[in-house]
């Protein structure tokens, strides 16, 4: 019945990696994900894993080595944050278009300009068009669970795409919480062996990766990537179910928290969902019909399912821990509003940009959003749909 422990989010990821015992891990340290390669290198030094740990000289080389390794036929993992993911940006696209199921632990941190080391989703949101599957995690348990599931999702023959498993820098990466680990044998059996169909070290058949692709072919290749991303949806659901049967913790595209009869709702991802649940519980006790949609899968975007889950609410706030500078709201907001548009009676929608660069988000902030939504539901003019939460104006 699992192994009870107390671990930080980084330790949880490192433990998942140890249990999986990947073939290769190229990594370069960056706050706040540094601890992941640190813990892992200790496992290597102690002989607890037999992974090739490649101490590259940059994140660009980390992702490049991941691509070379995965293409060669080895199960490959890495971890990074912020500027590290930004430095990988160019080669993230290469990994996805080469259909290489690399698994990356992304510990979300603000991008530099000015430099800031705290939680913010600017890094992974900047990679949202790269062709990677993106899974977000509320807490340490979810980071661990999601990381284990990532291999089954990415490596599935109908998918063959890289996966990044995100969690909030410091808030969950360094916050120590109770966690239930799964027995290593069960993890190994769940993840299984990596047996790619085509790989460079196959002695019976060579393969060439990374062609020059003319306009005659490029578009079809992009379309094939899209089909793989669409296929991922079914795989994510079946893996989430199978994982639940093993662990008792079932996973879907998102968690609908007290949403069934809710009149207003918040959509948010990662750790703030935990704070929001407390607010939902408290306001429910006051008889207020508030709910939460905690988005777990951002790529592929489960649009139809989100629209169905929100079809009966009257007002929705979408919280973005990232400023995309579109000037019309955050990126999660834009996509959620897009899918709500097709509903016969779409709810009112408000974009809240919050928590940039690790700005604290407290229950009173979330409560203020729910109160605003309830007022809009009761007929108050919606007003400005693009708002900042907790900022000094």
């Amino acid at each position: 019945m699992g192994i009870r422990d107390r671990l930080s989010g980084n330790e949880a990821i490192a433990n998942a990696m140890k249990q999986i015992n990947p073939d290769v891990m190229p990594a370069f340290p960056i706050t706040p994900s540094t601890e992941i390669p640190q813990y892992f290198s200790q496992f290597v030094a102690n002989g607890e894993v037999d992974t090739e740990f490649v101490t590259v000289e940059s994140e660009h080389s980390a992702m490049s080595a991941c691509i070379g390794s995965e293409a060669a036929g080895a199960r490959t993992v890495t971890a990074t944050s912020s500027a590290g993911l930004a430095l990988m940006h160019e080669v993230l696209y290469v990994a996805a278009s080469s259909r290489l199921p690399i698994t990356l632990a992304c510990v979300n941190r603000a991008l530099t300009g000015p430099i800031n080391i705290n939680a913010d989703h600017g890094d992974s949101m900047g990679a949202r068009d790269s062709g990677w599957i993106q899974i977000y995690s509320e807490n340490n348990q979810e980071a661990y669970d999601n990381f284990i599931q990532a291999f089954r999702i990415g490596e599935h023959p109908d998918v063959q795409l890289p996966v990044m498993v995100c969690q909030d820098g410091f808030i969950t990466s360094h916050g120590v919480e109770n966690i239930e680990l799964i027995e290593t044998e069960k993890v190994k059996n769940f993840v299984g062996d990596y047996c790619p169909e085509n790989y460079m070290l196959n002695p019976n058949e060579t393969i060439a990766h990374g062609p020059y692709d003319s306009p005659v072919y490029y578009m079809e290749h992009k379309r094939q990537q899209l089909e793989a991303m669409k296929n991922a949806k079914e795989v994510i659901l079946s893996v989430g179910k199978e994982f639940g049967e093993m662990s008792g913790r079932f996973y879907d595209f998102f968690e609908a928290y007290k949403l069934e009869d809710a009149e207003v709702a918040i959509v948010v991802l990662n750790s703030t969902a935990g704070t929001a649940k407390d607010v939902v519980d408290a306001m429910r006790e006051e008889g207020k019909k508030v709910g939460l949609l905690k988005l777990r899968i951002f790529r592929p975007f489960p649009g139809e399912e989100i629209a169905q889950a929100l079809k009966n609410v009257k007002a929705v706030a979408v919280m973005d821990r990232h400023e995309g500078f579109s000037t019309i709201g955050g990126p999660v907001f834009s996509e959620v509003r897009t899918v709500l548009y097709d509903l016969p009676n779409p709810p009112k929608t408000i974009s809240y940009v919050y928590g940039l660069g690790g700005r604290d988000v407290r229950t009173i902030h979330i409560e203020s959003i729910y109160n605003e939504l309830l007022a809009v539901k009761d007929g108050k003019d919606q007003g400005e749909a693009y708002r900042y939460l907790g900022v000094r104006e």
Partner: protein
Amino acid sequence: MAYQFKDVMNKPERLTGGHRMCAGCGAPLAVRGVMRALKEDDKAVVGVATGCLEVSTFTYPYVAFKDSFIHTAFENAAATVSGAEAAYNALKRKNKIDETYKFITFGGDGGTYDIGFQSLSGAMERGHDMVYVCYDNNAYMNTGIQRSSATPKYTDTTTTPAGKVVPGKQQFKKDLSEVMVSHEIPYVAQTTFIGNFKDLHEKAEKAIYTEGPAFMNVLAPCPRGWRYETEDLMEICKLAVDTCFWPLFEVINGEWKLSYKPKKKLPVEEYLRPQGRFKHLFKPGNEHLIEDIQNEVDRKWEALLKKCGEL
């Protein structure tokens, strides 16, 4: 075993014909020359940096390399192949693979001296068992002959044009071979295409079959960028060597060894004259530019002779 030109040339080609490199280009010669040094039973993973060689040998859906091949981007060929080598070690350790694989990376001077230098330095420092081969054609040829840090001084390129005031590139070439020697890797060699390709072959064999990282710098002329007649490729290489503009040497575990000493060191003009990229140097009044180049060639040659114990 002594070098047998006929036997080596009769080995099955690992880079097939039908690729789209220009006639008179040195890059495919470098690739074939290096790949011929592989034992026939040994398998290879070939990595190539973005550049002429990559786009001309792997234009979807055709690939000219018979071994497994990978291209990812411009600046990361060494890192990419280092990952493949790490995968090989991991799979060997787990008894998932029996065959012997060798890891060979090719990059032009842009992908090696400049944008890919960090990745190269990192891979060599980490000690991967791989060979990095730079085919140095002295400029960014794939994008249309822009200067690189490997471009010789006073060369006319499209970003260092010879103008009325500025006579081409203003800096001497970076000595990358020496920089790689400073990495204290087991094997570094500088070569080009001379005679029956013995020098290239023997160095490639040492580079591939020396355990650990090896670096080869191969001067690989480009007829479009250098503006010579395509049939003159071998002659241009010979002049580069006989003028000591591009000396041949190898450094084995830190020991410098001169590979070739011309019987008569030719004046550098002999090398510059047949190339359109140096045409402006032969205008009246520009004699001092050639003198400047000659002085630098002499200085570097003397220094090399000392390192090799020839003086």
